[in-house]
């Protein structure tokens, strides 16, 4: 393993924070502080963490409706994200976006889209923009297994390859599109091989192993940045919860879920860092405690934050009615 100790600790901190953040979201949802559709990321932490930490600060990431983790790893504060979920004026989108529509321009995170596959051509456009402006940045374009059956998936891959754009498509294959098994929805379910139909190299990685994801993504980011064109990575992973907060996930067997939970990415990294002597148990506990504190603080901050002012209703529809 070639990943520096400090980077491993950073990744561990990210994964623990994501896990604790999502647990906090579940509590706040149950308590009625969060409304609408809310899709948790518990179980998939290794993917966003391993992939996004392979980016430079001014590379772009864009994703789907399940993006709490991606925004956190990109650098958005837990406070700004939690407040967004609470619909407060202090939220990262001033309370106008909600769970599915995080966006943080400051951290080069471009959303947050609620329509399956909708972000794929947009990410390709960002990559085109980088190429046309001769900028060095790459785009990491996240999507799920379900999105690979949408028309825009094919349009996006086709254009990305046609113009040799610096985009890394990252498929988070958690095997379920809402409640439908990938084998029921996809005539060909080795998603990384779908890229080959467009002449795009496709790779597969264990999405429950953050070090493997990181290592592979470093390689793919380098490839895209050096002009190699688009690449696709399929990270096989599992979400422990249902599709959203209102889904109990009864379409999956308990045995299946238990099997995947044994592959949990957080204890896996903890164990390997302990064995390598990178950390001791006390350090790991400190990381857990810190995440607890950050999330508790974020929830307090969100609850104490003001609702958007009534005049915000008509702000930002058009450029001329920009908010302050």
């Amino acid at each position: 393993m070639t990943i520096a100790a400090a980077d491993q600790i950073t990744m561990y901190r990210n994964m623990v924070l994501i896990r604790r953040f999502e647990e906090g979201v579940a509590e706040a949802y149950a308590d009625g502080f969060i409304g609408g559709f809310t899709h948790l990321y518990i179980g998939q932490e290794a993917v966003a963490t391993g992939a996004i930490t392979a980016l430079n600060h001014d590379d772009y990431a864009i994703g789907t409706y399940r993006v709490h983790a991606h925004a956190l790893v990109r650098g958005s504060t837990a406070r700004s994200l939690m407040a967004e979920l609470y619909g407060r004026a202090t939220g990262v989108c001033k309370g106008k976006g909600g769970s599915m529509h995080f966006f943080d321009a400051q951290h080069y995170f471009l959303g947050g889209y609620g329509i399956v596959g909708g972000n794929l051509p947009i990410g390709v456009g960002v990559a085109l923009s980088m190429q046309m402006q001769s900028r060095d940045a790459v785009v990491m374009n996240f999507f799920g297994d379900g999105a690979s059956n949408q028309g825009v998936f094919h349009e996006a891959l086709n254009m990305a390859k046609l113009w040799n754009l610096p985009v890394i498509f990252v498929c988070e294959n958690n095997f379920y599109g809402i409640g439908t098994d990938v084998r029921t929805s996809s005539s060909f379910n080795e998603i990384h091989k779908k890229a080959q139909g467009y002449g795009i190299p496709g790779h597969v990685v264990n999405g429950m192993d953050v070090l493997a994801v990181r290592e592979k993504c470093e390689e793919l980011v380098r490839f895209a940045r050096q002009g190699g064109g688009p690449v696709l990575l399929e990270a096989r992973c599992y979400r422990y919860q249902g599709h959203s907060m209102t889904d109990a996930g009864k379409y999956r067997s308990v045995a299946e879920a238990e099997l995947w939970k044994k592959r949990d990415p957080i204890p896996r990294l903890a164990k390997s860092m302990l064995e390598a002597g990178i950390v001791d148990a006390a350090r790991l506990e400190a990381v857990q405690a810190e995440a607890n504190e950050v999330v508790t603080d974020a929830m307090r901050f969100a609850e104490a934050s003001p609702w958007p002012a009534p005049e915000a209703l008509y702000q930002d529809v058009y450029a001329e009615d920009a908010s302050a």
Partner: protein
Amino acid sequence: MPEIRYYEAVSQALAEEMTRDPRVFVLGEDVGLVGGTFRATEGLMAEFGARRVRDTPIAEAGIIGVAMGAAMTGLRPVAELMTLNFGIVAMDQIINHVSKARYMFGGQAQLPLVIRAAAGGGTQKGAQHSHSIESWFVNAPGIRVVMPSTPYDLKGLLKTAIRSEDPVLFIEHEMLYNSKGEVPDGEVLLPFGVADVKRAGRDVTIVAWSKMVHEALRAAELLAHEGIEAEVIDLRTLDPLDRDTILRSVLRTRRAVVAEEGWRTVGVGAEIASQIHEALFYELEAPVQRVAAADVPTPYAANLEKLALPDAQRIVEAVLKITL
């Protein structure tokens, strides 16, 4: 002033804006080598190269998504959809993504993006190529809708559209591409939200846009023989809507007809008629009349198509109904 055709006004405006601002680029189906199905982008690829006049696959949702991604990260794309019929294929990207992004991301997303498309019937293209569906887009907040009726207006409005910080749907009329009009060389800029009184009159106000402006002007000629002086207002932009000019005129004439090529039910005309009634009910001599297309898919047979689409004669009949 030199006379040029409507389609030439498009390429003039594009060339001038591309020269002025290196961030402006054109993309779409057949826009480059072919020069546009309606000749509107003729000569641009030779002048600006294949990078800035970019031929795309036939992938409408992809084209709009790509343009959106590019607009969010520093470029000013002008995407051509060839015809607005294909805009229906891209409806998710236009409405769910482009028109909502600024608002739902709390003002962080900048979308200086123009979508050009040809619309309108009257050339026996059958039901799937004869759409006048501007009402669908005017109904959605977050995207401007522009429909020029003359080469002069086209040039001035397209240049404004390209400089606008908001996404703009720029709808050209298929049957106007060969129409001629005086357009000065060089800078013409027309503001959005300012209607043009194409003919002054005291007895009735005819509100129209795009090709129906010409039908309204013909109707006004016919009515003049009957001693009725009709005022013809060309809205030029439907969003923003120049409500003041409409109401000021109707307050004087006390009679109004709204003429549109789109379907009658839930059309833009219904909205304008309602606004006039809300504001001026007690000033009106008669109920506002609507002239619109029959609520049927546009038929192919020449005689039926003529029956389905509104024309000058229909406008005359509507005016006579409230002036005799």
